[in-house]
C-alpha cells in the first residue's frame, strides 16, 4: 500500500514541533526612548540622579536609590571597563553569533550602571575583569534606535582598570 511505503521511507513520527509565539507591542517609556534615540545617533545617553549624582545608562527615568525622577541628560563616551564576563560555548537554537563568544558587563566611563555587551576582536581566553574596551558602532546609515546599533565592544589598548574603580558594580 502506498501509505505503508510512506512510513517505511520516513520512519515513525517521534517528535512534534510546538513553537510558542508571543506578539507584543512594546513601549519602552520616555527615559528609555531617550537612550534608544541616542543609539540612533551613535551616542550613549544616560540620566543623572539630582540627589546622589549617579548616572544611569540606560535610564529608567528614576533613581532606584533615591526614588526621584532623573531629568538631567548625560552623554557618555565610547570607552568603558569590563566588570564581569561570560564565555559562551554552548550552542542553542536561534543563536546568531558563532561560538565561542564573550558576553560582558561593561561600565562606561562616567556611568554608575553597567550593561551587557558583546566583546569581539580578542581571543576568548584573553578576556579579563578590568579590561578597557570601546564601543564599535554600525555604519552611520545602519544606526537604529536599538542596541543593534552597537556592533560590539573591543579592547581599546589602555592598561586594565584598577579593581577599586569598578568593585562597586559587580
Amino acid at each position, binding site marked *: 500500500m502506498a*501509505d*505503508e511505503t*510512506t*512510513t517505511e521511507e*520516513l520512519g*515513525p*513520527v*517521534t*517528535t*512534534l*514541533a*510546538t*513553537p*510558542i*509565539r*508571543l*506578539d*507584543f*507591542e*512594546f*513601549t*519602552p*517609556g*520616555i527615559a*528609555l*526612548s*531617550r537612550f*534608544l*534615540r541616542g543609539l540612533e545617533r551613535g551616542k550613549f545617553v544616560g540620566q543623572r540622579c539630582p540627589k546622589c549624582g549617579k548616572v544611569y545608562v540606560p535610564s529608567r527615568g528614576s533613581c532606584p536609590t533615591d526614588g526621584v525622577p532623573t531629568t538631567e541628560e548625560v552623554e557618555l563616551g565610547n570607552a568603558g571597563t569590563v566588570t564581569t564576563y561570560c564565555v559562551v560555548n554552548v550552542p542553542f*537554537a*536561534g543563536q546568531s553569533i558563532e561560538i565561542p563568544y564573550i558576553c560582558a558587563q561593561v561600565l562606561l566611563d562616567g556611568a554608575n550602571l553597567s550593561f551587557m555587551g558583546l566583546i569581539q576582536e580578542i581571543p576568548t581566553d584573553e578576556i579579563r575583569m578590568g579590561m578597557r574596551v570601546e564601543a564599535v558602532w554600525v555604519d552611520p546609515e545602519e544606526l537604529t*534606535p536599538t542596541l543593534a546599533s552597537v556592533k560590539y565592544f573591543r579592547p581599546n589598548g589602555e592598561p586594565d582598570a584598577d579593581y577599586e574603580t569598578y568593585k562597586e558594580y559587580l
Partner: protein
Amino acid sequence: MPESEALHASHVLEYPYSRSVGPVIGAFLTGLRDGKLTGVRGSGGSVIVPPTEYDPTTGDDTGEMVDVGPGGVVESWAWVSDPLPKHPLAKPFAWALIRLDGADTAMLHVVDAGGPDKIATGDRVTVRFRPAAERIGAMADIESFVPEVGAS
C-alpha cells in the same frame, strides 16, 4: 520630551520547542501522516481517540492501535466567525468535538461547515486530509472535517 516622542515597536518572543511524542501518540501522528485515523483500545475495551498511553478510566496501559473514522458525529461545536491568524482555517469555521466511527471518545477538531446554520449536534462529518506531500505527522495534517455528503 512629549509623550508622543516615546518609541513604540512590535516585539516577538518565540521559542522553537519540539517535544517527543512517545510510542502511542507517535503511532497516531504517523497514521495522520499516512492519511489514516487511529485510536487505541483501553483496558475496558473502549477505543480512545486521540490515543493515550493509559486508559483514562482505569489507569492501566492501553493496548493495540485501532483504525477509526473516516466519518464521525459532531457531539458539540462552537462557531468562530472571526478567525485569528493562528487558527487552522482563514475563513469562519466550527471547533467541534467529533466522535469518530469506531471510537468511544470525541476528538477536538475543525468543521468547515460553511456557516453556523449548516452545523448541528448529531451531524455526520468526514475527514478531509491535506495532500500527502504536505503531511508532516501533526494534527494539522487534517485540514478540517466536512459535512458528510448526503447525510440528513
